């Protein structure tokens, strides 16, 4: 209790606006251009709203989960760009970027999964035969950071630009080279293809995992493929000859209210 009180005194008004003001990032109530909102790729017109603590404005509630717990803003943007090439927006529906896949990945890398908590990590480590599964000492969070850095380094070498500045086709070229894993190594013994595989898997997970994990925004990943989410029973539908389209429900609906 005592600790909590102390904490509250230090930040008398927990709003983002006040925090930003106190930390010197705001001038007259506006976020200094390019510091935070700008780096996250937000529409500059929305900056004002952000500063005005949009969570309580008439604009409605904004998802507090759309915030970073692992990436730097630049890493976030590179992840957005790369995942969008893996699962692009098209006439069927949104792509990885709109679905918040990069938010999902950020949260996963900050989770126990990012530090390989449930993997056997004792040595020694040897080069495996293809049938023996990965034998990597490096943690997923570190590999991902190296992978993102690698995307920029390789893009610089090939096109003299960072990954996010490339045209879509150029980004695809870079990703193909990463997938093949022949062009260069992220670090001694670490193929780019290992990183690419994780990136690809995480993208699919971010499109289709329950929205509580941060991706699959508004269940749009599910809607695209007529997946009804996590309903409790399909006893009726399963025997129907015709396809039965249902509105998806997420685990939120299991909370009872």
């Amino acid at each position, binding site marked *: 209790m005592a600790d909590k009180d102390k904490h509250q005194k230090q930040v008398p008004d927990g709003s983002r606006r006040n925090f930003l003001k106190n930390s010197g990032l705001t001038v007259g109530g506006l976020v200094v251009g390019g510091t935070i909102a700008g780096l996250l790729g937000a529409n500059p017109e929305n900056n004002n709203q952000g500063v005005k603590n949009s969570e309580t404005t008439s604009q409605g509630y904004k998802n507090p989960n759309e915030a970073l717990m692992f990436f730097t803003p630049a890493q976030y943007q590179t992840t957005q760009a790369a995942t969008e090439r893996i699962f692009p927006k098209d006439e069927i529906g949104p792509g990885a970027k709109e679905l918040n896949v990069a938010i999902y990945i950020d949260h996963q890398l900050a989770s126990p999964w990012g530090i390989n908590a449930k*993997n056997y990590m004792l040595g020694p480590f040897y080069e*495996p035969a293809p049938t023996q599964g*990965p034998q990597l000492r490096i943690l997923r969070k570190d590999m991902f950071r190296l992978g993102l850095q690698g995307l920029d380094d390789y893009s610089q070498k090939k096109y003299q630009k960072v990954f996010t500045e490339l045209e879509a086709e150029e980004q695809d070229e870079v990703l193909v080279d990463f997938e093949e894993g022949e062009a260069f190594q992220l670090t001694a013994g670490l193929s780019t293809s290992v990183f690419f595989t994780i990136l690809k898997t995480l993208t699919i997970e971010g499109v289709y*995992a329950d929205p509580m994990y941060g991706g699959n925004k508004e269940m749009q990943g599910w809607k695209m493929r007529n997946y*009804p989410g996590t309903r*409790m029973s399909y*006893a009726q539908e399963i*025997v129907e000859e015709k396809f039965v389209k249902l509105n998806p429900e997420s*685990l939120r609906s299991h909370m009872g209210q």
Partner: protein
Amino acid sequence: MSKKLPKVPVVIVGMGWAGGIIASELTKAGIEVVGLERGKERQVKDFLMVHDELRYQHREDLMQDLSKETITSRNNGKMKALPMREYGTFIVGDGTGGAGTHWNGQTYRFLPYDFEIKTMTEKRYGPNKIKPGYTIQDWGITYDEMEPYYDKFEKMAGISGETVELYGPRKNPYPTGPMVKTPIMEDFEKATKNLGYTPYVMPSGNLSEPYTNPDGISRAACQYCAYCENFGCEYGAKADPIVTVIPVAKQTGKLDLRTHSNVTKIINDGKKASGVIYVNTITGEEFEQPADVVVIASYVFNNVRFLLNSGLGKPYDPTTGTGSVGKNYCYQVTAGSSILFFNDKQFNLYGGAGALGIEIPEFTGDNFDHTDVNFIHGAGIRVTQYGNRPIANNTVPKGTPSWGAEFKKQSIKYANSSFPVKIQGASMPHEQNYLDIDPTYKDAYGVPLLRMTFDYTDQDKELVSYMVKVTRKIAEEIGADHIESIETQGEFNVNKDSNTHNTGGVIMGADPETSAVNTYLQMWDAPNVFVVGSSAFPHNSCFNPTGTLGALSYRAAEGIQTYLKTGEPLV
């Protein structure tokens, strides 16, 4: 130093189906039992938020924590075995219920042929049909002797199904009727009937109707909720030790169930065990639990590992073929499927159940003539509907890139418009496929890991090449816009192949020279040790193993009761 606890009549290591059945049978008979389980206590109320594909299927929430313990694997004796560092193939259970919580519930009996496989194969095809190197042997028991135990398991679990003429005779029908037939199952039914086969609805541990078992346990009917394989059932509809045998054992007041108790060793003098050593995984305290009878029910891998690390039984030696602990490790084959793709048909594939499917018996066991083929045994050929969860199911036609615009388009197009005709094929034992102790790697408690040396044999591969023609024929008879077949069984890959039907290593038999346990799963070398599980199978059949494992657990429970009275070997 370990703290020595008061002696008990029976200690059981592992609280899955095998441990749970033994616990319930013994405690009902008034015997005091201590149950040691390394994982946590689990109940149905844990599953309110279970419809979470990421957490349960892709982050393996219910499964063994590999940071504590894993196996090492290699494809042959010349390779260096390396640890399975992350999940792929085997998703071993952890916590009360074991893998019986996250299993599918497909509950078969093995065939009369299985139990007398060597005798019957030689009788029909002559002594040379079984090729050199294949350590195929009879089980020391017949189907007729197994029948009452199967019956007991099926009644306890409430198995839903229909009688199949081509299989072993049943004294009683299944306790509940078969599961529903979905349109894709009806397509398979029609096509296989056209081809002259006799399809049947897969026997299921997901209840087709509400059921009360002989122990008085009532369970609800399956809702086809699609979060079944890899998940616990929030309705208690799926047969699971935590909703059947474990509560029954607890109710007697005779079960002392200790979770977070990781057993590291069986204390023994080579002829008899006096108890086990375990560590409380939360406090780190070490205990010695003395017992008159030690039951090892910790799944195939640890059953073998315990015996080898504790110096019980004779280790199998692949160079001489002598010894039995670690021998006849088998798996199953699953390549050979044919996938149907439809352009303008959508099915309600989002719904399903772990044991919802339809199958033909004509290619199982010795139900077809093997004279002109280079393999024995067979496969169940089937269509299943488990519920296509979206992270795991993104089937695209061959040639489609694995990412990008085209992948997105095709994977969404076929999300509800594609299904396979699959096989589940038997796997025969070979002298070079075995389990022993890894010389290098250890678990979190400093105990050496188990090493698996395994690859598919020529026999396994021939079987797949034959069965793929059958799945293809059926797929074509169903008819689709596009059909693709997986023609060959490649090398065994510890992170790709998917099935947790491991068998062997502590095999049963009639002869102490060629088996480790008798048909009560009592060790020949140490009569107060019973090793229970599919580790007892001398080979793996073309059916899911748990029906047979459950039946053998009932038989072992009977044997333990007799042994407690007589103190003698049962055979």
